[in-house]
Each structure stands twice: as C-alpha cells, then as structure tokens.
C-alpha cells in the first residue's frame, strides 16, 4: 500500500496537467473559431515558414 504515496500525487498531477492545459487553451482563445482552425490546417500557404 506504500505505493499509494507515489501513485496518488502522480494521478492528481496528471489530472492537474490536463486542467492546466484546458485553462491555458481557454485563456489563449483557442475556442474562438473551431471550424476555421479545423480548415486552416488543410491550407498549404504557410507550410514552409510561419506566417510573419
């Protein structure tokens, strides 16, 4: 049962990582244009170098 000492913090940490990623995505307006972002990836316009 001693393994719980590691396992619980690890599972909480991983969950927390997911939550942090969600909060980051929300704050960085990643949900602004879901349809457009899904389509933008199909365009080859900025394939060679990023948009300035």
């Amino acid at each position, binding site marked *: 049962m001693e393994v719980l000492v590691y396992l619980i913090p690890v*599972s*909480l940490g991983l969950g927390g990582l997911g939550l942090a990623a969600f909060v980051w995505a*929300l704050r960085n307006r990643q949900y602004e*244009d879901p349809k457009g972002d899904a*389509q933008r990836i199909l365009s080859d*316009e900025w394939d060679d170098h990023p948009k300035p």
Partner: protein
Amino acid sequence: MTDVSTDFESRLSACPACDVAPLAGRLARTGPVRGDVILSLPTAHCAACITDVERALSAVPGVRAARVNLSLRRVVVDAEGVTADDLIPALDRIGYEAHELDPGALTATEADRRGRDLLMRIGVAGFASMNIMILSVAVWSGADAATRDLFHMISGAIALPTVAFSGQPFFASAWRALRAGRLGMDVPISLALILASAISVFETWNSGPHAYFDGVVMLCFFLLVGRYLDYRTRAVARSAAEELTALEVPRAILLREGAEEAVPVADLRPGDLILVRPGGRVPADGVVTAGASEIDRSLLTGESVPIAARPGDALSSGEVNLTGPLTLQVTAAGRDSSLSRLTALVAAAESARGRYTSIADRASRSYAPAVHLLALASFIGWFWMTRDVRVAVNVAAAVLIITCPCALGLAVPAVITAASGRLFREGLLIKDGTALERLAEVDTVVFDKTGTLTMGTPQVAAADLDAEGRAVALALAGGSAHPLSRAIVAGIAGLAAEVEDLREVPGYGVEARWQGRPVRLGRADWVGADDEAPGAATWLRIGARVHRIDFTDSLRPGADKAVARLRHAGLRVMILSGDGAGAVRDIAARLGVEEWRATVTPQDKAATVAELSAQGRHVLMVGDGLNDTAALASAHASISPASALDAARVASDMVLVGKDLGPVADAVGVARASIRRIRENFALSILYNVVAVPFALAGLATPLIAALAMSLSSVSVTLNALRLR
C-alpha cells in the same frame, strides 16, 4: 501529500477573480478596436475560402492584417483609414459576397466572457469529479480503515475548493431567489451542495463510512453542463440576431453647405438637411424640401402601391425612396424618431412575455418545496426513531442529493439546444428562451401580407398590350430603376423597341420618342389615363392610345407550402393586411386562405390578435412591418423575416433568416416535438427519483447509488433530447 494537493487546487480555483479578471482585460484588448472593419462573409465555407479572402484583403493598400473567423463567417480587418467600401469590391472580384457589420452592434465579447467563465467552471468540476471518482471506486470496492479515511480526505481536499468555485453560479442565483422571497430550482441545489459537503467533512473527520464528495462534485458538473447548453443556445441566436442588426450600418448623407458627407444616423440633429438617393431607406423622420419621387411605405403600412412624394410632404424613417433623389429636412432625429414610437410597443411586449412561465419554472415551482419537505421529513423521522442527529443528517443529505434536479436542470436546456440547433440549420433563429414552448401551444396563425407572404416585389399580372406595345414598354422600363419598371423588364417577353430622348421624370414615370411619336410610361394622371381603378398598376401611352399594366406581388418562396402544412396540422390561418382589398383577396385565393381582412390599421391588427387571445386562442403572428410590431408583441409567439424592419425583429421571438417561408411550418412541428421530449425527460427523471428515493429514505442510499442514479438519469435525459436533431 494532502497539503500539496490542497495547495495546487486552491491556486487554480479558490480565486475565481484571478482566473477571470485577466481574461477580461485580455478580451478588452484583443476584441475589435476602433479602426477595425468587420465584414460578414455568408458564403465562406472552406479552407481555400480562408486563404483566398485573407490574401485578397491583405493586398488592399492600407490593410495591416485580416483574420477570417469561419465559425462566425466574419473577417476582422485591421486597417487604419480604410473603409468597407474599399474592401468589399476586392472580395467581390474573387467571388465572395461581403457585407459591412457595425462593430457597435456586436457585443459578442461581453457574452463570450460569460461563456468562458462557465466553461472554466465546467473544466474544474470535470477535473475534480474524475479524480474523486478514481478514489471513490477504491472506497466502493472495499477500502477500509486508514486507507478509506485517507481517500476521503484527499477527495474532500479536491471537492471543497471545487464546490466553492464551480458552485458559484448556483449560490448566487439561489441567494437572489431567497432575497426575492422565492424558491427557485437553485435553492435545493445549493442546499444539497452545502449540506452534503458539510456532512461529508464531518464524516471524514470522524472516520465515517460514507462521504458524498463524489456526488457533490458530479452534481456541480452535470448542472453546469445544463447551464452552459442553455447559455450557448441563447448566445448563438443572439449573436445571429445581432448580426442582422449590424448589417444595417446606419448612415445618412448630410448636406453641409452644398457638400455631401456620410455621417452616422445617430449624429443627425433636427433641422439638418439630408439627401436620400433612389433605392435608399429614409434614415430619419423629415419633410421633403426639394425633389420629387415615389415612396414605398410597405414596411410601415403594408400598402404595396408606391405613393408620390413632393416638397412639403412628411416622410418617416423606414420608408424607401424609389425614383428620384430627395432632400429632406430632419424633424425627429436619429434614434428618437423610431424609438419614441416603439417604446410603448416594446414595453407592452415585454410585460406580455413576463407573464409566461416556462415548463421548467412550473416544474421547479412544485418540485423545490416537495424536495425540501421530503428531506426535512426524513430528517425528523430518522431523528425521532434513532435519536441520532448524525444519522438523520446523513439520510437527509442523501435524499437531497438523490432528488436534486440534476436531470431536471438538463432536461429543458438539452431539448431546447437540440431543437434550436435544428431550426437554426433550417434558417430560423430562436431569440427567446421560452419561444419554442409558446410556439408549441399555437393554434392560430396570423400572417401579414406585404413583405411576409409576398416578397414585396411586384410581378406583371395582366397587360393589354400588342407586340408593339410590349416593345415600347420594355424600352421605357429599361431606362428606370423603379420596382414596377424592373417587373416589366423581368415579366414581359420580347425585344425592346428603339427609342430616343429617353428620360425619367422622378415621381411620374419615363418618357421618350418612338418613331417620332411621344411615348410615356408612368402614373395615370401624368400619362393622361382617366382610369382610377384600385390596385398596383402603371399606364403606357403610345400616341393617343393608353394601355394599363397590372401588377401583383410575387409570393415568397415556400409560402404556399407553409400555409398548406399549417392548415394540414389543424391550425387556423388568417391574413391581416394594411393593403387594399383586391390585392389581399388575390393572395388569399392563391394560398387557399379563407379568412382575410384588408386595409387593417396597426391598432386593428393588435386588437384582432388580442381579441383572438381573449377567445382562448394562442396566436402565432408572422409579420415584417412597423404596422405589425404591436401585433407581433401582443401575440403568443411571433416570427419576422430577416428583411423586416429592425423594430419588428426586436418585437418578435423568432427571426426567419432565409427567403423561404417553409421553416415556419417546420418550426411548429419541431416545437411540438420538443415539448413532447421535455415531458418525456421529466417523466424519466421522476422515474429515477421514484426508484432511488425509497433507498435514500430507508437510509440505504450509499454514495454509489447516488452517483449511479445521478449519472444514469442525466445521460438518458441528454440522449433523449438528442433524438430531436
């Protein structure tokens, strides 16, 4: 170990203001700023569209950046000193239709913040419930003694900050309800959250066997999802309705010492001189000082026959100038002119809406007291039997959690979201939350004629013309942009004759010389016809002969099908129009409607609707003009087409986006189906309660049963709602 997780949790969620406030600041900065031009792109739909539009706009001199939002079908252009008039042709050249949007009328950022706030709370509650569930599964499978206590403690450390953060919308609304002396749906929710959290903390402290942390957090999660669905539905409809308003960028051409200047309508002052070009809408109330033209006031009165305008005539905003340029002296400025007329009407509309209580309200009104009484009764009963406060509170908390209107909170929003989504795809915006419920009760449909059943554009009905006459009429009509002229060009077959000296006399008609003879097309008195028969008509004079050309209004596409389907569904269909009897009789006959009334004043329309309501009928009003606004506001439910006057759209619950009238019939069907679904959902969640409550009352409700009952009912209710799509 516990300390670490507490610290981590509280940093993320115990300070909602820290989470939300920087977001607000960010939004304010990145939202549309002054100098940005926002264009609506109704035809953009693919990856190529995005790159095409952005490339074309970036090529326009002065444009710094352009970003397409495909979800909203908009493009935001960062361009100092460049106007939409420079950008729209650039898009037109590559084949994209674009319309300017008024950034002032789009308040999406404010609403966005609320949606994001809710999403953040859902995310936190979802994270917490998953983690607690992992620990709870261990407890359910038989962890005991120190392990169970440790798991309960960790669960509590995650659950308490989560409830404090994610439960805020419920606590706030419960507090408002209590202060107003009401028992809303949120009071039992808040009570369940607080009581269950408190008893769980107490149990954990005393190494008790049951803690409800999992149930509490899951409750938060499901209820927040319901809240968010509800919010999304409204936000989507509102943003689409806002876009309709923003499409009409209100500008007027101000004459300042002879020079023309485009100014926002809000800046007009009484006494200003403004120019109204042919085809333009009159921006403010005023008196004609120069020019002669004809005025289409069908949006205001429902008359389809244009009226002559001469110096000295008073015009009101919303009328459309047809033939010649007019100079107007403003009498009532900007927003005052239309608003003052509408304030009373809109206020009346709101009071009528306020009287309607939705199914959810009615359900919670009887549900909330029942839940409280049941919990109280179980507490008193168990206390009386066992003399043990701890057991009694435990049972009461279990009853509260199990009866908590989790599915009830999801039942209505899930159905409304599914139904609105379906109607939205068919081109109908639901602006009001209770509109679908009211629409389902409708048994009488009242249509306006001009602009609603008809397109408001005339069609040639009959013309006593020979080949020669047709050729001359076509030649004359080709020289004018008047709607009747356009109808002649579109509706009469043949080749135009060769004419000379073609000129348009604003307010009268068109004249020219044909084979040396003067020919005229226009008003009866000007052409020299002594024919004064009513109806929309124009006259053609060739030498001494006078021909009459009659017009009818063209039916809106889908109007006949919509009327037929509504009648088939057993609804009573009526037409109330401000137009003349002949035109209304004609349309009624074409649609097969027996009940119609012509030359109805706006007051009569509202009175007729009120009279029908007094007879116990639920009226759906479909109209587009200022003359319909009062009737739209007083009807049980109302729909207006997107071409309607702004005021009519504000007064109605639903807006028809496309040209087709067909969705009106669909809407009634979908509304009835969704009310059926809502009732089924209520029945489902009550069934779950009936099964689970005896367990709770008997003191047998373990947290496992509570969690099972809650998730099963929520998921089944949502799936049932999704059947509507």
